[in-house]
């Protein structure tokens, strides 16, 4: 594996890239103890905010603090413009794909995607067949995971089209950076992200059911305090100025959704739901769910309430469907995809499987429905025994796996024990789609693998986060 591309110093490492000019200069000027002091200060502030986050984890409170790195990840305006175009294209294609899958199914008839990959997919929701949603938008909020391998090449690693999380970190990280490093901000022109909640609310309101006559009532539906993302749910509800509801706060009568308020039942038009499909309506999906609202799907089918994201969007972010994304973009938009897909071998196909089995030590193998960095094999760093064990698993259920080459994620300067050193990063921008099109606040959540050489950025596996700066000019 070749040396990774560094966001600050490029491939060769001898020249600072323009976007990082000021930061590199500042890093040279700032005494190490000042940096260290700020780092500890950031940790303190975070622990304070984090306390409110961590206590939800009860006993293992401290483990719930996700490490924060004080050195920002910076993108030039031109880089962002490119990403923005690519993300817009991708999310438009995702929406058209889902509409098609639950509607005319042209892409299946054209033989571009094998039928069983859709119909036998656990994320496929037959309940959505023929169901129209306002303005044909299914994925209102997408978190697209992007990695970079050189100056001009960005890959999409994953499309998160169900209930992507992490946006509260994007907002809190910026807040903390502005508090800690005002002088750095005055040396840059950084595009703001704090309008995200406003944009989100506008997007949600714009997709209210067509029958909504007055100002639509929006709520955020959370599984409750025991959910690991509860802090984010309450944070967002607060910023949006909408009620944070649990399933038991809502009820359905005559195919209309109401929330129980101190002034009696109040009609609900748009539900930003952070509850998975499986749990959202015990009458339709898992009967043992106490997180959902009985009858919600009937109100949804009647077109009296909008769910964001729509039910059944999981069909689009499945890792096996992912491998078809370039074809999906071309099919619906007639354009070449701007953002590349990581080359993917689908182990369900015999030839692909053979290649994967022959090259296991070089590849990353993932479960089709897995997430959070669990259940995957990273060939180059895995022991021989681990590889052989994985080989057995793979042979037993090949259709559960896909494989990808081990990509050298770009690195970004990061504050670690031994000082400032490069660490691998990815980026999750949040893409909003409403009636008036796609909006993306310039930035996103940069996740960083704090362990030297590690390529896994997931917080559950020792990853941290950084503020992401998009330069304005």
């Amino acid at each position: 594996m070749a040396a990774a591309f560094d966001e600050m110093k490029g491939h060769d490492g001898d020249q600072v890239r323009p976007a990082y000019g000021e930061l590199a200069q500042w890093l040279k000027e700032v005494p190490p103890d000042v940096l260290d002091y700020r780092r500890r200060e950031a940790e303190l502030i975070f622990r304070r905010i984090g306390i409110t986050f961590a206590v939800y984890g009860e006993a293992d409170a401290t483990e719930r603090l996700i490490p924060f790195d004080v050195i920002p990840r910076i993108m030039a305006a031109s880089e962002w413009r490119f990403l923005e175009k690519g993300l817009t294209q991708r999310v438009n294609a995702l929406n058209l794909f889902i509409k098609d899958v639950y509607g005319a199914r042209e892409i299946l008839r054209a033989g571009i995607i094998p039928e069983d990959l859709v119909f036998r997919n656990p994320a496929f929701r037959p309940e959505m067949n023929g169901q129209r949603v306002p303005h044909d938008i299914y994925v209102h909020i997408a978190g697209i995971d992007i990695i970079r391998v050189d100056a001009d090449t960005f890959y999409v690693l994953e499309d998160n089209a169900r209930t992507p999380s992490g946006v509260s970190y994007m907002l809190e990280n910026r807040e903390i950076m502005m508090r800690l490093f005002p002088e750095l901000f005055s040396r840059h022109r950084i595009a703001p992200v704090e309008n995200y909640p406003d944009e989100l609310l506008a997007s949600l309101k714009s997709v209210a059911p067509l029958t909504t006559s007055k100002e639509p009532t929006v709520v955020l539906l959370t599984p409750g305090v025991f959910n690991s993302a509860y802090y984010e749910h309450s944070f967002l509800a607060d910023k949006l100025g909408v009620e944070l509801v649990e399933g038991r706060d809502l009820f359905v009568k005559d195919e209309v959704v109401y929330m129980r308020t101190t002034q009696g039942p109040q009609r609900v038009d748009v539900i930003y739901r952070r509850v998975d499909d499986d749990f959202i309506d015990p009458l339709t999906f898992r009967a043992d769910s106490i997180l959902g609202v009985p009858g919600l799907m009937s109100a949804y089918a009647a077109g009296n309430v909008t769910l964001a994201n729509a039910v059944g969007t999981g069909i689009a972010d499945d890792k096996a469907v992912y491998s078809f994304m370039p074809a999906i973009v071309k099919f619906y938009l007639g354009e070449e995809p701007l953002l590349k897909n990581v080359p993917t071998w689908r182990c369900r196909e015999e030839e692909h499987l053979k290649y994967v089995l022959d090259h296991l030590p070089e590849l990353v193998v993932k479960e089709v429905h897995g997430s959070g960095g669990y259940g995957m094999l990273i060939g180059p760093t895995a022991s021989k025994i681990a590889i052989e064990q994985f080989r057995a698993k793979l042979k037993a259920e090949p259709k559960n796996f896909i494989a990808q080459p081990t990509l050298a994620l770009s690195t970004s300067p990061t504050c670690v024990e031994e000082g400032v050193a490069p660490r691998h990063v990815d980026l999750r921008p949040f893409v909003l789609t409403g009636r008036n099109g796609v909006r993306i606040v310039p930035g996103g959540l940069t996740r960083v693998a704090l362990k030297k050489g590690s390529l896994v950025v997931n917080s559950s596996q020792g990853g941290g986060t950084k503020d992401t700066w998009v330069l304005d000019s």
Partner: protein
Amino acid sequence: MLSRTADNLYWLSRYVERAEYLARILDATQRLSALPLAYVGASNEWESAVLTAGCATGFFKLYDEANEENVTDYLAFSTANSSSIRSCFEAARHNARAVRTALTMEMWDSINGTWLELKRYGNGPTSREEFSRFLRWVQESSLRFDGSAYRTMLRSDAYWFSRLGVYMERADNTARILDVKYHLLLPDNERVGGPLDYFQWAAILRSVSALTAYHWVYRDSLKPWLVADLLILKDELPRSLSSCYEAIVRNLDQIAGAYGRQGAAQRQARGMRTRLQNSKMDGIFQRGLHEFISEFITENNRLGGAITEQFLL
């Protein structure tokens, strides 16, 4: 606002208030039981504390004897008692966590800090001194929470529901003390002014933090009928039944004003307030103090039900 949110705010306040009340009872009992028998008689103060806390049934299921050790454990630290100080703080925080966004940062800090600190006391005190410190800490925690709510909350329905919780609980607590101790306050009690009763009356006043207030209001030595008057009818005393109902009516009116609608809760509360305003101690004694108190407790519970039905479901 969401009914669940209002419900959580209401109970958050009730539980904090209840914890403080329990601490006061325990404090007063500790003082009484420290006195020589000649001053307090042979009555079992610890049993009386369990009665006043309203959890005698649960207590005697677990223990045969009401002594200092058992009662302190049950009222302060027991997890088996859903109304122990520990359980109250845990329930309060549980409610707070569920409505995190409806609280101000200060309120959250206060209740969350209390909950975190509670762990420091473990399963009970190792000495009387430590237990006294614990009781003081409980009262301070409640004061801090109450103060943070009073000083930082937006004056809207969220605030009014949280105040309602405070006063409903407070009225209930004061009534409960009167219910258990009413026999000491009857004017025809023969030993009026005897040392035995003096300390009992002082203890009653202490459990509603009104010992100093008594002297300021009456400028007289302790007289049982005046103690009853203070706890029942005096608007000036923040823990009197009358004062609690003044506040309950005021907060319910605020809610009715904001919602543009009166309901059963408002009517019932106003009815009780009017009755308290029109009462004189003489009349109450004539009709029977105990009957009056029992009736009050029933009515207060009925109002709690009406509030729940009208707003919290």
